[in-house]
C-alpha cells in the first residue's frame, strides 16, 4: 500500500515538475518579450530578425527558410485536412459515369482516416513550430543580453562546434527522437483518437466515412448497449489476463531462482553443460518452439498417444475429468489455461535462471556463511537472506515482467490460434475466446474483423492497467536507480 502511495506521490511530483518547467519556459518568454529590443520582439513574427541584428546572417537565413517551410506546409498540406477534423469528412465516395471522358470516375470524396492521420501530423508539426518560435525569441533575447554585456557572440562556425560539444546530446537525440515520434508517438495518439470514433467494418474508408462518437465505445466495453456482449467478454478476458500475468510471472520468477540456486550449488558437477542445455531451449525462436509445442500437445498429438498408452487418459475418464477419448490439453476451457501456464514455465524459467544467476553471483556470501554457522536451515537461508536480496535487486524487473506477460502475445497466439475454439456463444459474439489476453483479442479484432474502434478502446484499457502496475513499481525503480553509484 505504501508503495502505491509513494508511487503516486512521485508521479505527482514529476507532474508538478513538468508544469513548473512549462511555467518557467513561458516566464522566460514573457521576460524576453517585455525586456527585449525591437528585433527580439520582431523575431516572434520573423524568426530571423534577432539574428540579423547580431550579424548572424547564416542562422537568420536558416530560421527564415524554416519559417517559410512551416507556412508552405500549413497552406498546401495542413489546410486540406485540418478544417475537416471536426467532422472527419462529409463527402461520401461515389462512382459516376462521366459523359465527357466516357469513363467511370470517383467523385472528390473525403477519406476519414487520411483526414485523421494528416490532421494529427499537422498538429504535431504545429506544436513543434510553436515551441521553436517561442524558444527562438528566448534565444534572441539571450543574444541581446550577451551583446549588452560585451560577451562573445557566436558566429556560425561556433554554433556548429557547440552541437559537437555543449549541445552534443541534441545532435545525438534528434534522429532517434524523430524515429520514435513517427513510429511510436503519432501511432499511439492516432489510435487513442480512433477509440472515440466509429471506425469499423461498416465504416471503412475509402468507401464509407467514419466520425466522432464520444465515449460510446467505452460504454460498450463496460457493458452498455442492448445486444452487445463486449462487456461480458471484457470482464472475463481482463480477469484471465490478470490471472495469467500473475501466475506466469510468479512461477517463472521463483522457478528461475530455484533452478539457478540448484546449478550454483557446490554439489553440482558440469554446471556449464546443464546451463547450456537449459539456455538452448530459449535460443530456439519462439515461433518454432511454441508451434512445435502446440503439435506436441495436440488432441491427436504425441503426448496424447503416450498418455493413452500408459493409461492416464483412461484414468482421467474414470475420474470424470474428461469426456473425450483424448486429453484436450489446448482445446478445452480450464485444461488450456493450465497447459499454457505450464508451457510458459518451460519457456520462462531459463530466462529467469540467466538473470538470477547474474544477481546471485553478487549475493553477500558472508551473511549466508554466518547464518549457516548459526545453524540456519537451507530453507531459512533462502527465505530470510536470498529472497529479500533478490527482491531488492530484481523488484523493478518483476514489475516489468508482469507488464510484459500482460502483453505476452506470442505464447497465447502461437499456442492457441486455430486450435482453441470457444463454445461460449456470448464470447464468440464479441470475437473473443476464453484463453485470449487483451492483446490477442485486440489483434483478432483488427486483423480478422476490422473492428478498430473497439480494439483502440481495449488498447487504452491495457495502457491504464499497465500504468497502474508500473506506478506501483515506479517506487522500486526510483529507489533502485543506481545511476552514478559506480562512477
Amino acid at each position, binding site marked *: 500500500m505504501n508503495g502505491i502511495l509513494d508511487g503516486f506521490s512521485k508521479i505527482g511530483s514529476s507532474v508538478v*515538475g513538468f508544469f513548473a518547467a512549462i511555467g518557467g519556459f513561458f516566464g522566460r518568454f514573457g521576460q524576453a518579450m517585455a525586456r527585449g529590443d525591437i528585433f527580439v520582439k520582431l523575431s516572434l513574427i520573423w524568426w530571423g530578425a534577432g539574428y540579423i541584428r547580431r550579424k548572424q546572417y547564416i542562422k537568420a537565413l536558416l530560421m527564415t527558410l524554416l519559417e517559410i517551410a512551416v507556412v508552405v506546409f500549413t497552406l498546401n498540406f495542413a489546410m486540406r485536412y485540418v478544417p475537416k477534423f471536426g467532422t472527419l469528412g462529409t463527402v461520401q465516395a461515389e462512382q459516376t459515369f462521366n459523359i465527357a471522358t466516357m469513363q467511370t470516375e470517383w467523385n472528390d470524396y473525403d477519406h476519414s482516416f487520411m483526414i485523421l492521420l494528416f490532421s494529427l501530423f499537422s498538429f504535431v508539426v504545429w506544436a513543434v513550430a510553436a515551441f521553436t518560435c517561442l524558444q527562438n525569441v528566448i534565444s534572441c533575447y539571450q543574444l541581446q543580453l550577451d551583446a549588452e554585456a560585451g560577451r562573445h557572440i557566436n558566429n556560425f562556425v561556433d554554433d556548429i562546434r557547440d552541437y559537437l560539444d555543449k549541445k552534443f*546530446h541534441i545532435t545525438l537525440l534528434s534522429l532517434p527522437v524523430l524515429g520514435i515520434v513517427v513510429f511510436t508517438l503519432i501511432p499511439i495518439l492516432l*489510435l487513442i483518437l480512433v477509440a472515440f470514433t466509429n471506425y469499423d467494418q461498416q465504416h471503412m474508408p475509402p468507401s464509407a466515412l467514419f466520425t466522432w462518437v464520444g465515449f460510446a465505445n467505452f460504454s460498450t466495453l463496460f457493458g452498455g448497449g442492448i445486444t452487445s456482449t463486449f462487456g461480458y467478454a471484457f470482464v472475463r478476458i481482463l480477469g484471465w489476463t490478470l490471472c495469467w500475468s500473475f501466475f506466469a510471472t510468479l512461477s517463472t520468477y521463483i522457478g528461475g531462482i530455484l533452478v539457478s540456486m*540448484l546449478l550454483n550449488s557446490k*554439489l553440482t558437477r558440469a554446471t556449464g553443460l546443464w546451463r547450456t542445455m537449459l539456455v538452448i531451449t530459449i535460443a530456439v525462436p519462439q515461433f518454432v518452439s511454441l508451434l512445435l509445442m502446440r503439435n506436441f500437445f495436440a488432441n491427436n498429438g*504425441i503426448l496424447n498417444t503416450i498418455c493413452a498408452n500408459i493409461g492416464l487418459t483412461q484414468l482421467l475418464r474414470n475420474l470424470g475429468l474428461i469426456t473425450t477419448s483424448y486429453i484436450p490439453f489446448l482445446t478445452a476451457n480450464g485444461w488450456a489455461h493450465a497447459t499454457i501456464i505450464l508451457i510458459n514455465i518451460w519457456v520462462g524459467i531459463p530466462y529467469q535462471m540467466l538473470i538470477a544467476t547474474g544477481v546471485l*553471483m553478487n549475493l553477500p556470501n558472508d551473511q549466508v556463511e554466518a547464518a549457516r554457522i548459526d545453524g540456519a536451515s537451507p530453507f531459512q537461508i533462502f527465505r530470510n537472506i536470498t529472497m529479500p536480496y533478490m527482491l531488492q535487486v530484481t523488484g523493478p524487473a518483476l514489475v516489468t515482467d508482469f507488464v510484459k506477460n500482460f502483453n505476452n502475445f506470442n505464447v497465447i497466439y502461437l499456442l492457441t490460434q486455430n486450435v482453441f475454439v470457444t463454445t461460449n456463444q456470448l464470447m464468440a459474439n464479441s470475437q473473443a475466446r476464453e484463453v485470449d489476453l487483451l492483446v490477442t483479442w485486440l489483434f483478432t479484432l*483488427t486483423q480478422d474483423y476490422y473492428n478498430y474502434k473497439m480494439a483502440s478502446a481495449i488498447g487504452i484499457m491495457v495502457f491504464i492497467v499497465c500504468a497502474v502496475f508500473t506506478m506501483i513499481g515506479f517506487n522500486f525503480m526510483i529507489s533502485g536507480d543506481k*545511476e552514478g553509484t559506480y*562512477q
Partner: protein
Amino acid sequence: MSKKTTKVILHNAFIALLCIIWIIPIVWLVCTSFSAAPGMNTSTFFPNGWSAVHYKLLLTPDSVNQFPTWFMNTLKIACFTCIISTMLVVMVAYAMSVPKFKGRKAMMNFAVLLNLFPGMLSMIAVYFTLKTFGLTNSHIGLIFVYSASAGLGYLVAKGFFDTVPRSLCEAARIDGCNEAMIFWKIVMPTSKPIIVYTVISSFLVPWMDFVYAKIILNAGIAENYTVAVGLYRMLDKSLINTYFTQFCAGGVLVSIPISILFMIMQKFYVEGVTNGSVKG
C-alpha cells in the same frame, strides 16, 4: 560409497532429470526433422524411418516452400535493422547517460510511459501509415518497423555507459576533447561488450519476431516472406500433413545460427552488465 558422494549423485541426477525434461521438445524437433514421413508422427516419439530427404526438399523451392528465399529475406532485413538499431540505441543511451542536460529525467520518464502502450496497438496505426506510402508488403517497411523506435530500448546500454568512470571523460576534456570526441575516442572503445550485445540482439529481432512480419507482409506473396511467416504458413490445416517434417527441418536450420549468436550475446551481456567496463 560415502554419504557425501551419494548426495552429489542424487543432486546431479535431479538436475539431469530437469534438463532432460527441458530438452525433450528440442530433441523431438531434431528427430522429427530427420523423419522419412512428411506428416506428423503421432504414434511414437522417434520417427519410424530415418532420412534427410526433407532437408533436401526444404532447400528446393516449390509453390508453398521458398525457404532459401525466406532465409535471404530475413538476413537482409536483419542486417539493415541491426545497423540502424545499434546506431539509434547507442546514440540515445549515451545522450541519456553522459551529458547531464536539462530535461533528461523527464525524457526518461516519458520513454517509460511510451513503453507501457502495447506495441500491437501502435502497429495497427503504423500499418496504415506505411500503407499510405505504399510500404506494406515491402522489406523497407519492415526494416522501419523493427528499427525506427529502437531508441526506446536504450536502458541496458545506458546502464553500461553509467559505469564508465567520469574521471576519464574529465581528463579528456581538460586535454581539449569536445563531447563528440569523448564519445568516439573514450567511451566507444571501452564499450565493446555492450556494443556487441546491442548488435547481436538487434540482429536477432527479425529472426525471432513473428507478429509484426505477419501484419506487414499480409498480401500472401510467398517470396516476400520472412522465415517466421513462411514456416508458420506451412502449419496451415491443409498443409500440415505434407509439410510438418519440412517445418521441423526449417526450424532446425534457423535455430542453429540463432542459438550460436544467442550464446555469444549472453556472454557479452554478462561481461557488460556484471563486470562493468573499466576498473576505475
